[in-house]
């Protein structure tokens, strides 16, 4: 039942190795006013371990739904999603979802928010050092005891990133995590995310509306059609990091992607 077996390294409890994801003929629908509203139409996608894949598509096409399915927050109506050789049947800390909103708990300090996953699994006592490491990784070590309302939007999103990374995810699922940031913070966070991904080696799935962002960050860009989402194109971005937005190859790819999205110039 499994496609190409991925993540062959022996899985350790402390830090699971990067996992691939097999999305096999997944279809999904919502019920809207009593009628089914199909959002995913036989999506078939194979993501190798350690890959950085960006999902691009028109607004509301169902990309975020696909991410929720990979996170295990919802189960697909048809088809299956396999990670580490096992079908995904629920949320698992090895696959952490980062949302467009930081969704920090306002009643917890930044450090307590970052430690959430460890606390939920009863590991906070033994692994408290990971909280400090994650805060350092995103540059928030001086804001550990601040409350969310005291920090800026960019810092809150960094804290959300630290909260995801503290779990040492094998797959980091990013649902437009930079969508609401100001453009400067956004550029900075793009670089930082790539740096952390290179450093940690997890598999990254990124949903974004920003073509340039996808091309700057991902090793592969998947272009979706309008709802119900179908895969239109699967483009490798074989450029070394750090990438430059004026790179002629990147400019060419951007034009191609925009064309696929019906926005040819």
């Amino acid at each position: 039942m499994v496609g190409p077996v991925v993540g062959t390294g022996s899985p350790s409890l402390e830090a699971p190795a990067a996992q691939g994801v097999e999305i096999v003929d997944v279809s999904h629908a919502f019920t809207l006013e009593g009628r089914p509203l199909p959002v995913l139409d036989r999506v078939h996608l194979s993501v190798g371990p350690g890959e950085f894949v960006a999902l691009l598509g028109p607004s509301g096409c169902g990309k975020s739904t696909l991410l929720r399915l990979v996170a295990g927050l919802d189960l697909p109506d048809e088809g299956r999603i396999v990670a580490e050789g096992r079908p995904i049947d629920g949320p698992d800390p090895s696959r952490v979802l980062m949302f467009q909103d930081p969704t920090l708990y306002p009643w917890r300090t930044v450090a307590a928010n970052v430690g959430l996953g460890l606390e939920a699994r009863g590991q906070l006592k033994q692994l408290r050092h990971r909280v400090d490491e994650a805060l350092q990784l995103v540059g928030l070590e001086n804001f550990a005891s601040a409350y969310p309302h005291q920090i800026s939007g960019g810092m809150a999103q960094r804290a959300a990133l630290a909260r995801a990374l503290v779990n040492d995810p094998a797959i980091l699922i990013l649902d437009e995590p930079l969508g609401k940031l100001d453009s400067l913070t956004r550029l900075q966070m793009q670089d930082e995310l790539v740096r952390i991904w290179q450093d940690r080696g997890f598999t990254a799935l990124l949903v974004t509306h920003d073509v340039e962002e996808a091309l700057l960050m991902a090793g592969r860009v998947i272009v979706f059609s309008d709802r119900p989402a179908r895969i239109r194109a699967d483009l490798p971005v074989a450029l070394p990091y750090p990438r430059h937005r004026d790179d002629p190859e990147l400019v060419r790819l951007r034009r191609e992607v925009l064309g696929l999205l019906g926005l040819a110039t």
Partner: protein
Amino acid sequence: MSAVEDVRAARGALIRSDARHPLWLAGAAAAVAWLGAAALTALWPDADDLGRTDLLATIMATIGAALLVSFAADRVRPLPPILRHLGPWLVALALAFAGWELITAKLDLLPRPFFAAPQSMLEVFTDDWPRLGESVLRSLWLLLPAYLLGAGAGFLVGIAIGWSRGIGYWVHPALRLIGPVPAVAWIPIAFFVFPSSHSASTFLIALATFFPVAVLTWSGVAAVGTAYYDVARTMGAKPWFLISRVAVPAAMPSVFVGLFMGLGASFSVLVVAEMLGVKAGLGWYMQWAQGWAAYANMYSALLVMAVMCSTLITLLFRVRDRLLSWQKGLVRW
């Protein structure tokens, strides 16, 4: 600039800032007002034979003298800002006491015994304080356990119906029907069903507290965004964690609104219960004083009750401020 000049300039700045520190005019006015009220009380003979006139005058004079000293001390070292802040109130209080003294004790303009002179209320505190004190303790002894019982039950029920559809299905209709009934409407049944008036009153106070706490806890839990749960769920949180670490803290601001409303409701049930059945407490004291036409005692008990209720509300807000320090823009009590 030489060092000497530096020092001189610094001293000049110091003196200038001292000169800019304004006279505490409100304090001076308050001192004069209190001393004047004391003189009025002591020197103008009472229209009728009243006790404690001298003590009242002494207290007023002491306040006036203390204010005079503070006014002088303020020139040497600035007073704490809170005292300065209270200045206008101190003036107004002195004037109010003087006016009250004038129209009751001195001119006897208001019909007695319904209106009491300040010294008559003072006399209640000096002579009847054991009974007043006991009444306060009896009231608290009845109120606090009952309030905590009702608040605890309301909190648990609120979480249960906010969290579980199944529990909500059964409890919600009962809560909607019975909850809005004023708790005092149960008095005839409660005093009949329960073995003692104390247990009946405990039930009524707990019931009055229960309803707002349950409803507001419920609405607080129901209003928690699913994103909060999703975040914790993707990180491996179990249902108990979602309830205790996500739903409950997120609902706390709403819970405190319920606790505040419940406390208010519990006060009114307490007083009614004490007036009707319980033979102790401030409500009973007021009823008893009124029966003897001892209006000064009644007003004194009312004053004590105001202080008691206000203190309890203040305590509740303190607890809230501490627990909800993460919130922006809390209403200060």
